C-alpha cells in the first residue's frame, strides 16, 4: 500500500514537472512571436483587407448576381453613373461626365468623359451599346436582364420576339454621346444605372475570347480581364483571395487614396471574427447574432450597425385554408410584437417592419399597417370563424435551414400562441429544396427576404404584382397592378410616390405577406478606415476610402504590393 502511494506521488511530481516545462515552452514561443499585426502594416501601406463573404461566382457583370461579386466588380469597372460616397439618392458622375433628360424623363442623353480601359482603349458610347446588347442577348442567360426592361424594346429583344437590337432604346449618337429611350418617365433612372448589371464590358476583350452570347467566355478571367475602374485586378486565388491594385489610368486616379484592396472569401463568421481580432482583416462581412451585444459593449468603435434597405417577411399562400381569408392573415400580422422580437431575438438593431417598403427611402416613410394590436387581432380571428383560436386548422411555417430563421419562427409561434391561442408548426428545408417548394406554391407560410436594387419603393412594390415571379403568394389585385403600372408614367415624383403609397396600402389591407423587420448591416470595421459612410444599399465606393495615418505614396507599380505576413519594407516607392 505504502509502496503504491509513493509510486503515485512520483508520477504526480513527474506530471507537474512536464506541465511546467510545456508552459515555459509556450511562454518562450509567445515572447519570440510578437510580430506586428498584418492590419497595421496594410493600413500604413494603404491596403484594405476586406472579409468578403464568399468566393465570387465570377467577375463578369452580366453573369453574376451577388453582393460579394458587387464589391469586387464595382472596384474594377465603372458604369455611366457611380455611387456617391455618403448619399444614396445622389448619382455621382462616372463614365458619364454629365447627362440630361427630356421633360418627360423618358429620353436620356449621357455625355461620356475621356476615359480609358486598362488595355488602353478609350471608353466609347458604342461600348455601352455593345455591353447592353450582350446583357440582353438571350443565349447569354443574364439573370439580371429584367432590370433592363425599363428600356424601350429591351424585353422583346431578351425574349426573342425580335432579333434586331436596333429596336432597343439605346443608341450611340457619336463616339462620346449615348442616348437611352425608356418605356416611360423614370426620374430615378440615373440611380438605377449604379447597379452593376448596367456596367460596360470591353467589346474587343469579349470578342477575343468568345462570342457575345457565350456563357463560358473567358474574358473575365484574371489574365484576360479588362476594366475601367479605380482599381485593376491583380491576383485571383480561388477560395483564398482576390487582390486589386490602383489603376493609374483611371480618369479620377487623383481621388483614389488606397493602393490596393485584398478581398478574402470567408464564409465562416467565426473564422472571420478570429481573423479580425487577430489583426488580419479591416472589415468583416458579418457578425454572429449572439456576439453583437458583447461587441457593442466591448468594442463600440468597431461594431457597426447600419440600416439596410431590406425586408424580412413571411409569404402567405393565400390559396390555402385558412389563409384564403384576409382577416386571418391580418390577425396573424397584428398579433406580432415586432419590437420584442428585434430586442430579444435578432438583437442586431433591426427596425420593426410595419410595412413592405423599408424605412430610409427619402420622401416615403414606411406604412404603419402592420403594427402590434393584439385585441384587434383576436377580434379579426373571431370574425373569421376561429374565436379564441378554436378550430384553427393545422398549418406550418417553412424556413430554410438556418438557426436564426428557426429562432425567429419560434418567437412568432409563441406570440401567436399567446395572443391568438393558435398553434402553428415550423419545419425547415435545405435551401434549394425550400426554394423549389416556395416557388412552386407548396407551403402555408414561408420565410422570405428582399433587398432593394435601388433606393426606390418600386424596387419592392414591383415584385408583388399579379403573377410576378417573386410574389409566390397567389395574391393579386388588378387595382394594385394598375397603380404600379401607372406610377411608371406619373408626371412627377410626388404623384408617383402617392400612387405607390396607395398600392402599398391596398396590399397591406390584403396582407399576403407578414412584414417582420427591416434589415440592418452588422459588421466589424477597423476605426482607422475612413471615407466609409453608412449606406442603405451597402455600397461603399472604394475610391474614397483611406486610412488614418496612411503613408502618402505614389501609385504603386504592379508586383510591389506588400504581403501582410512579411515585414513591411520601409522604402517608399519613387515617383
Amino acid at each position, binding site marked *: 500500500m505504502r509502496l503504491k502511494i509513493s509510486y503515485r506521488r512520483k508520477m504526480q511530481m513527474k506530471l507537474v514537472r512536464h506541465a511546467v516545462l510545456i508552459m515555459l515552452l509556450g511562454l518562450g514561443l509567445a515572447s519570440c512571436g510578437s510580430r506586428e499585426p498584418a492590419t497595421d502594416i496594410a493600413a500604413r501601406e494603404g491596403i484594405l483587407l476586406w472579409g468578403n463573404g464568399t*468566393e465570387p461566382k*465570377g467577375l463578369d457583370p452580366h453573369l453574376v448576381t451577388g453582393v460579394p461579386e458587387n464589391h469586387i466588380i464595382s472596384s474594377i469597372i465603372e458604369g455611366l453613373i457611380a455611387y456617391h460616397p455618403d448619399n444614396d439618392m445622389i448619382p455621382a458622375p462616372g463614365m458619364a461626365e454629365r447627362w440630361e433628360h427630356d421633360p418627360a424623363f423618358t429620353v436620356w442623353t449621357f455625355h461620356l468623359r475621356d476615359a480609358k480601359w486598362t488595355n488602353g482603349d478609350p471608353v466609347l458610347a458604342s461600348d455601352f451599346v455593345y455591353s447592353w446588347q450582350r446583357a440582353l442577348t*438571350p443565349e447569354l442567360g443574364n*439573370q439580371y436582364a429584367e432590370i433592363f426592361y425599363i428600356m424601350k424594346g429591351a424585353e422583346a429583344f431578351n425574349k426573342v420576339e425580335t432579333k434586331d437590337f436596333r429596336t432597343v432604346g439605346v443608341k450611340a449618337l457619336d463616339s462620346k454621346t449615348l442616348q437611352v429611350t425608356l418605356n416611360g418617365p423614370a426620374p430615378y433612372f440615373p440611380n438605377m444605372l449604379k447597379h452593376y448589371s448596367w456596367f460596360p464590358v470591353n467589346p474587343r476583350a469579349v470578342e477575343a475570347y468568345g462570342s457575345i452570347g457565350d456563357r*463560358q467566355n473567358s474574358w473575365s478571367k484574371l489574365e484576360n480581364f479588362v476594366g475601367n475602374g479605380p482599381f485593376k485586378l491583380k491576383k485571383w486565388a480561388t477560395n483564398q483571395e482576390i487582390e486589386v491594385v490602383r489603376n493609374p489610368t483611371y480618369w479620377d486616379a487623383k481621388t483614389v487614396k488606397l493602393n490596393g484592396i485584398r478581398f478574402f472569401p470567408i464564409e465562416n463568421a467565426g473564422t472571420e471574427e*478570429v481573423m479580425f481580432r*487577430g489583426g488580419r482583416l479591416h472589415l468583416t462581412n458579418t457578425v454572429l447574432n449572439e456576439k453583437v451585444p458583447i461587441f457593442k459593449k466591448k468594442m463600440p468603435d468597431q461594431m457597426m450597425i447600419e440600416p439596410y434597405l431590406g425586408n424580412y417577411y413571411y409569404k402567405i399562400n393565400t390559396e390555402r385554408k385558412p389563409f384564403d381569408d384576409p382577416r386571418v392573415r391580418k390577425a396573424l400580422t397584428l398579433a406580432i410584437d415586432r419590437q420584442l422580437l428585434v430586442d430579444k431575438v435578432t438583437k442586431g438593431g433591426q427596425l420593426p417592419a410595419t410595412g413592405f417598403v423599408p424605412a430610409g427611402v427619402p420622401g416615403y416613410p414606411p406604412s404603419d399597417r402592420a403594427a402590434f394590436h393584439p385585441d384587434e387581432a383576436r377580434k379579426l380571428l373571431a370574425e373569421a370563424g376561429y374565436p379564441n383560436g378554436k378550430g384553427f386548422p393545422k398549418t406550418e411555417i417553412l424556413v430554410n435551414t438556418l438557426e436564426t430563421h428557426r429562432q425567429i419562427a419560434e418567437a412568432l409561434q409563441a406570440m401567436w400562441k399567446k395572443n391568438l391561442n393558435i398553434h402553428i408548426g415550423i419545419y425547415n428545408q435545405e435551401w434549394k429544396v425550400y426554394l423549389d417548394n416556395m416557388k412552386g406554391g407548396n407551403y402555408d407560410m414561408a420565410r422570405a427576404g428582399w433587398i432593394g436594387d435601388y433606393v426606390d419603393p418600386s424596387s419592392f412594390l414591383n415584385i408583388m404584382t399579379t403573377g410576378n415571379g417573386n410574389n409566390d403568394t397567389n395574391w393579386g389585385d388588378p387595382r394594385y397592378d394598375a397603380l404600379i403600372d401607372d406610377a411608371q408614367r406619373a408626371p412627377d415624383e410626388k404623384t408617383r410616390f402617392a400612387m405607390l403609397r396607395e398600392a402599398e396600402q391596398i396590399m397591406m389591407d390584403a396582407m399576403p405577406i407578414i412584414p417582420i423587420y427591416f434589415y440592418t448591416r452588422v459588421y466589424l470595421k477597423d476605426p482607422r478606415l475612413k471615407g466609409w459612410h453608412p449606406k442603405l444599399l451597402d455600397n461603399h465606393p472604394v475610391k474614397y476610402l483611406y486610412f488614418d495615418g496612411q503613408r502618402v505614396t505614389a501609385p504603386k507599380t504592379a508586383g510591389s504590393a506588400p504581403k501582410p505576413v512579411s515585414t513591411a519594407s520601409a522604402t517608399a516607392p519613387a515617383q
Partner: protein
Amino acid sequence: MLKFIGKRFLQGILVLIGIYALTFFLVASTPGSPFSSERAMQPEILAQIEAFYGYDKPVGERFLTSVGNILHGDFGPSAVYANRTVTEIIAESFPVSLKLGSISLLVALLLGIPAGILAAVKKNTWLDYVPMSTAMAGICLPTFVMGPLLALVFGLIFAVLPVAGWFGPEFVVLPAATLGLYYAAYFARLTRGGMLEMLNQDFVRTARAKGVPEHMIVWKHCLKGGLIPAITFLGPALAGIISGSFVVETIFQVPGLGQWFVKGALNRDDFLILGLTVLFASLIVLMNLLVDIAQVALNPRLKYD
C-alpha cells in the same frame, strides 16, 4: 503479383463506373436546380441557361453524353461558377489538399504510431494511460472544437501563428495540427491494439523464455504484424485526409477540395459534384490497392491471389 494488381485494377474500374452511375442518377433526382435562386428568373432566360448546360435533354441522354465527355477527359463546366471548368477547379484546389493532407498524415503517423507502440509495450502504466486517454479525447473532440481552440491559443493569446489563411509555410501549422492530431489518435489506438495482439502471441513467450531482449522482440518480431491494423486504416485515412476536411478548411480558410465538395452539393452544381466524386472514388480505390499490396508484404499468412 502483376496478375493480382491487374485483377484489382479491373475491379476498381468497375467500382468507379458503378459509383459514377449511382451518383449521376442520385444527383439528377435531387430536388433543386443549380440555377434556382431567391430572385425569380424570367422563364425565357432560365430556358436559355438550361439549354446551354444540356438540362433540357432527358436524363438518360445526359448520362450518356457525360460519360462520353469524361472518357475524353472533359468533366464539363461548373454550372454555377461562370467560365470555370470542373477540371480547373480541381487542378487549383487539389495541390492544396495534397500538401495539407500529406503534412497532416505525417504528423498523425509520427505521433500516433510511436505512442501506440509505447502504450502497448508499457501496458497499464502511465505511459499507456496518458497517451491513450489523450487519444480517446482526440477522437472524441471534433475538429470544429479543436481547430478554433488551437486558433485561439496560438493565434490570439500567444499570437505566434496566423489564425487563418493560406499564404505561406506558417499558415500550414495549425490546420495540419488539427487534422493530424485527430488522425494521430486513431493511429495510436490501432497500433496499440495491433501491438498488444502480437505481444500476447505464443512465439513472443517462447522468445522471452529463450532470453531474447525485449527491444528485439518489439522491433524485430512484433512491429511488422502489429502495424497491420494501422496500415489497413492508412488507405481510407489518406484518401479522406487528401480530399480535404471541410471543417478544417473552413475554420482555417484553406482553399482546398473539401470546400468544393460542400459548395458543389449546396449549389447543386452537378458537374462539379460528379467530377469530385470520381476523383474521391479513384483515390480510395487506388489507396486500397496500395494497402492490399502492403498488407501481403507485411503479413506472411496472406498471398497475392
